[in-house]
């Protein structure tokens, strides 16, 4: 970019000093010297100020993105404690190799996967349904759209705290309702699947509206005449949805799947706040501890920065693998269409 500015500046340089003086000519008069100085400045300005303009992003990125990333990598090769972060002792790849037989890590990985599936699949299906309904002409449609987005605008903390109360064992509203229809109370905290379902429900509640709005926007971009011709061919509403809406939404669906997958692999706040013990172990038997939560527990509760860094990088690697798989699937989908 800078070089292009440079070349763009050249004509103006020539223009600013008409009748260029030859190099060996008599002492330059004041005006000429001033002009030359100006022109040098102008040149430097053209060369460097674009960098200055983009520098804030890069400075911020280096300070808060790149440096922590690299430092985490460096720390992951050491035994470091939060009590003395500068006092590192080299352990090589030990922090990585130990992950292979760290049952808590794999438990967390499994929980992340299952919570991710329980949360993402229904979430996207519901979002699709809601978007489809909102796509019809409705009274007060803006109201519904805003209402859909309201959970997204709520903080995770307050939402999770309310869900903790709803899912309480003795005084929770959900168990009270279950009791009403004659079902025994469910231990939403202590048992594995109920607790994962409960955590997932917070995620579903929070993100469904967001995805619905994305679907809705994409639906509204589908040309109306496609539906008209489908209707002329005698396609029912359901057939129209299957054969017109869904194929047109394919790139959007792909986008939401990718974003939700990334979000699901980083789930942290919901399980942390859902834990009645306010600990980071994700329940008494780690039944809903996700990878993000395990990372936090190792780093901040147990103060093992080296181990936590290794977990972070392993998560990163797993995410990259997921990203590649996503890419492959989407390429195949695109090819088949």
């Amino acid at each position, binding site marked *: 970019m800078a070089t292009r500015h440079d070349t763009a500046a050249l004509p103006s340089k020539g223009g600013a000093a008409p009748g260029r003086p030859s190099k060996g000519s008599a002492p330059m008069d004041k005006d000429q010297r001033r002009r030359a100085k100006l022109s040098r400045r102008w040149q430097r*300005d053209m060369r460097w100020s674009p960098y200055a303009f983009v520098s*804030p992003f890069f400075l911020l990125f280096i300070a808060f993105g790149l440096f922590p990333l690299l430092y985490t990598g460096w720390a992951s090769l050491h035994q470091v404690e939060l009590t003395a972060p500068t006092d590192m002792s080299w352990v090589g790849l030990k922090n990585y190799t130990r992950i292979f037989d*760290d049952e*808590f890590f794999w438990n967390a990985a499994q929980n992340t996967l299952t919570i991710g599936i329980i949360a993402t699949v229904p979430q996207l299906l519901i979002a699709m349904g809601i978007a489809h309904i909102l796509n019809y002409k409705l009274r007060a449609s803006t109201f519904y759209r805003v209402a859909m987005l309201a959970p997204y605008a709520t903080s995770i903390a307050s939402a999770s705290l309310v869900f903790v109360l709803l899912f309480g064992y003795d005084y929770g509203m959900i168990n009270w309702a279950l009791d009403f229809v004659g079902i025994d109370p469910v231990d939403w905290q202590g048992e594995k699947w109920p607790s994962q379902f409960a955590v997932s429900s917070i995620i579903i509640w929070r993100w469904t509206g967001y995805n619905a709005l994305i679907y809705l926007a994409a639906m509204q971009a589908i040309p109306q005449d496609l539906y008209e011709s489908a209707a002329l061919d005698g396609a029912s509403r359901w057939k129209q949805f299957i054969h017109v809406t869904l194929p047109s939404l394919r790139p959007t669906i792909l986008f939401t799947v990718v974003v939700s997958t990334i979000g699901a692999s980083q789930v942290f706040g919901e399980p942390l706040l859902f834990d009645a013990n306010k600990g980071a172990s994700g329940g008494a038997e780690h039944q809903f501890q996700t990878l993000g939560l395990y990372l936090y527990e190792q780093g901040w509760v147990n103060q093992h920065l080296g181990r936590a860094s290794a977990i972070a990088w392993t998560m990163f690697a797993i995410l990259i693998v997921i990203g590649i798989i996503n890419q492959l699937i989407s390429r195949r989908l695109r090819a088949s269409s």
Partner: protein
Amino acid sequence: MRARTLPLSRQRSGGGKPIARKALAIAAVVSLGTGLLAGCADDGGSDGDGSSSDSEGKTKITMGLFGTFGYEEAGLYAEYEKLNPDIKIEQTVVERNENYYPALLNHLTTNSGLMDVQAIEIANIAEVVGTQADKFVDMSKAEGVDKKNWLEWKWEQATTKDGQTVGLGTDVGPMAICYRKDLFEKAGLPTDRAEVGKLWAGDWNKFIETGEKYKKKAGDDTFFMDSPGGLLNAVLSSEKEKFYDASGEVIYKSNPAVKAAFDLTAEAAEKGLVQSQTQFQPAWDTTIANSKFATVACPPWMLGTIKAKSQPDAAGKWDVAVAPKSGNWGGSFLGVPKSGKNVEEAQKLVAWLTAPEQQAKLFKVQGSFPSTPGAYDSPEVTGAKNEMTGDSPIGEIFSEAAKQIPVQVIGPKDQIIQQGLTDNGVILVTKGKSAKEAWETATKTIDNNLDK
């Protein structure tokens, strides 16, 4: 989610005065750059310019606290400022120690952003003494500080092996048993505090036996005790050694006292004597409001918790009896980091705030029990009463308990170990797991958490 950065697709078009533009560019870069640096450097410090005096020329002492110390509420800052007109005190309070302590550690290890006075919770004092002592001033050498003023074990907790004291004790938590007189009466148990104390004097097993008697009469409506964590904590805190031995080795798995405390709590859980609750959680709060349990291990500050969570009609229905064995639960220290701006003045302030007279005043307002026996004879303590316990002389009961607390060996990771035994251990027994399974889950979790 990450913010996406848009590509800079537009190029600058010509026009405008170059010098002015350049000046603008430099100004932008400089201001953004300094903003960035300031953002890094100025965390925690209340005044960015580094001066410690305000416009009136007063020396400002900053206090970094967590929770509710109550100095301001008890008017102690105002009193000190009156005594020392050129001092101004400013406090910064973080609500939960879980959030305060990691930040304090960060500030200590980087030696920046520290306040003149920093509070340290008892759960962290061993770690601070062990790893951060060189960052703190030796308070034993401060003016007007006499070791003999404090309870011996309190002083020792904050003192390194070579005799440096990193912080002065504020309050302690001598533990008694708070019990509901009305529920005890219904269950056919005595209600007088001396007789209740005799039921289990000297032996936690007798406490469980009393619980069984209680359950026979009371049935399933109410529980004998509030939570497995509360019981485990109470038993453990009356031991001389729990998780570490005197040389600093982790011995929690081999220490018979820990296993005995765990098994006793598990037994109580299996017999349905304790609620399946975790202390200080909303559901546990609800059981206070609904009068669902008859006893709770009870340092003075617990009465404040009970009062805050109870219905009004519970006032006066509680009483305090001596625990089977005395232990300590809670308490804090005030330390002065060496890198503070007003080390001398801060030391004087800390010495004053932790002196017996001030601790007695604080007890009256805040219920934080003094760590200085000299305060136990003061009218504030001897005449103390609590709304929840009616006319009971709680000050005398707690003073007596405080004097009998053993000098306990504490270690840097006590909190992690105890949390593991509670949240990943005994609570499982209340949910139907066997004591053996619970112990295995707990020890596996703890070992993984301790492993560096």
